């Protein structure tokens, strides 16, 4: 076998071994974006109406393609305002709410993760009182 071929082979083998060694000894975080927390909590029964809905994801999301709507029992959106990225957190979006009357509400969201995957789901919460909480 020619010398340059041998050298090329050595380079490939060394490169792959190094890459494998690096990969085998580190457990990287590999995941699709997932909803990790909501405020108000999913299915919560609240004594005070929330002033906003905030969703937290496990990775950064594309704010320009984030959709978040809160629907009342008649399936009507309670606000036309668009959600914004949280000021201090690129993994979180916030939707300010008007004062909500007692009742059941559905939160529907559709977001795009940085790796180009769309995540969409929904959850409910119930308001027992009217006084807005924080």
């Amino acid at each position, binding site marked *: 076998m020619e010398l340059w071929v041998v050298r090329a082979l050595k380079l490939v083998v060394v490169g792959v071994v190094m890459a494998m060694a690096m990969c085998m000894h580190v457990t990287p975080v590999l995941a699709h974006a997932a909803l990790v927390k909501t405020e108000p909590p999913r299915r919560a029964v609240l004594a005070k109406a929330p002033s906003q809905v905030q969703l937290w994801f496990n990775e950064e999301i594309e704010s320009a393609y984030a959709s978040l709507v809160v629907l009342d029992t008649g399936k009507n959106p309670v606000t036309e305002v668009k959600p914004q990225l949280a000021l201090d957190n690129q993994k979180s979006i916030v939707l300010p709410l008007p004062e909500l009357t007692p009742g059941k509400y559905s939160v529907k969201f559709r977001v*795009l993760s940085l790796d180009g995957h769309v995540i969409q789901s929904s959850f409910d919460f119930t308001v027992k009182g009217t006084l807005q909480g924080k």
Partner: protein
Amino acid sequence: MIEVIAALIRWLALASNMILIGGCVFLAIAGREKTVFDSPWFARLTRLLPWLTVTLLLGLLGLLAITTAQITGIAESAWHPGAWLDLVQKTRIGLVWKWRAALALLLFGVALYVRFSPKAHWPYVVCAIIAALTLAVGSLASHSAAGDLSVISVLPYVLHIVLASVWAGGLPAFLTLLFVATEKQTPKETYQSGVQILKRFSAMALPVMVAVVATGIIVADRMVDTSYAALAATSYGWFLNTKVLLLAVILIIAARARFSWMPLLSQNDDRAAVGGRGLRRWVTVEVVLASALVLAATLLANTVPAKHTVIEDWPYPFRFSIDATWGELSVMIRAGVGVTLLVLAGGAVAIGRSKRWETKWRIAIPAGLVIFALAIALPSFAVQAFPETYRKTPVPFDAISIANGATLFAANCVPCHGPQAKGNGVLAKTFSIPPVDLLTEPHTAKHTAGDFFHWLTYGIPGTGMPAWANKLSEEDRWDVLNFLHAISRGYQARLINPYVAPNQPYVVPQNFSYSTHNGASGTLKDFRREKVVLLVLFSWPESRARLDQLRSAYTTLSGSDDTAVLAVPMNDLTQQEIATIIADMPFPVATQGASEIMRSYSLFRRTLSNPDLAGEGTTPKHMEFLIDRYGFLRARWIPAVDGAGWTDSTVLIQQIEQLNREAEIRPAPDDHVH
């Protein structure tokens, strides 16, 4: 339809990019001998390079249109350049696309230069490098780049696709030269020069393939994780299986080409002709299979990875589970026999090689032993499965779900299963097969969450268990399942006491959400990797003295801000009572979510000395829990059972210090039951 078009466009872009890489590498290898520059085949391949880059650019444009439609959820946006621009300007995948397109344009320029400039070796190398960069940049928007973008996460994937391109992308060029060099009328010099180039490429392809397989295993391992069932029941699994199968066939052909036909080319004319024929026929097949493999890889790259896939409909009536079967003597014996036979099969391979058995025996004997081993061992690991067996619960294992599950259980299940799910309800003895004990027996560990969901949904034939699909919503059924897991975990946690067992985290408590008297809100999970949590479930006024004690000791307890204390009332409080409790309270008192926390954490009331199995059970008036920084329940103090315990704040502080000394031992608990 849009999915099919998307797959074809992605395939087109990927295949053209791979051929550009492999073709340029092949031509660079060939170009080391300057005489080939004048060969018609070399010129023909060089002329193709600009066209391939045009194909790549068109593929990238199509990819942008399709991605825009998929991301916006509006099919028409595929035809709106404005929507494309938005995507390019406002997203990371748009940025990645921009880089790919820029590199592809640069590649087009280089390909034109290669096409029209005086022939030299280095432009092909430059062309191959730019093509590889174009492909590698695409991995920044791949499954591998999801989560934390880092060299570690992306490197194996980049190596995998670039090296695969060197091999698979070089095959069309290899085939072109093969047909030119091994035809009957080929001049002797062209033949010899061509064979030399083919041998060089073949010699390089072997280690490249080894590297492709190695990196492929790493990438597949990351994408599958432990979701092996998904390999036999999801699109991702079938695409991956197809890819592996195609690769296996290709490797067999490649090995035959490398070690059987290629050496014949250097022998006498007759044998060289046989070698040439074999190579032409089978490398053609290899190219077709490689195209199919690239298509499978394209589909794979755009399918939700196995570890994130939900198997909605498990197609088999059984599954294999070591957890659910291990422990029975017959299972262990059959597993032992199976392993022994597998070892014998390995031995047969070695002996067959050293003793030079006939090929048929070298294959038949080990294969027979492997089949025999699997036939003996596997059935013993098989357990009944249902379409829902691998379904993942959409409802998190949290206090709200468990509390709702407890309410539903109390309303619907108690007559048969008993108030504590011990299988001792008043109707239990009326059934020929009585309900199982879901409290003390580890059923939730032996069966999947999906199994329980199936039984809750459709009932269990031959027993008194009815179907609940028409009475409870799907979400409610998952809540009941979460409750069953919680009571089982509560029983398993009876070993926990006021003293932390060092380095032994095993009880996973449910997450909960709360709002406090001072307007703060959060979840238990928020404290992970931050603070040890002292969760105080108190009754008023019975716990007044203890709360005063905690108030006094708070400064010492919270230490260097590494411990959080959260008090949760176990009974309904009036505004006046709340005002009394929170007066001068240095730590938060939960006002929202308290009921669910109390109802779900009271399931951790069982201790070794007081398992509380009689009747409906009794919830203590006061309980305290220590939850470590990694989300595990590590210690519990129930004054009514454990005596003085943490009334001595020194004892409590010792437990907190122990937890603060510990490093992470187990992965963070999952939010869902399995």
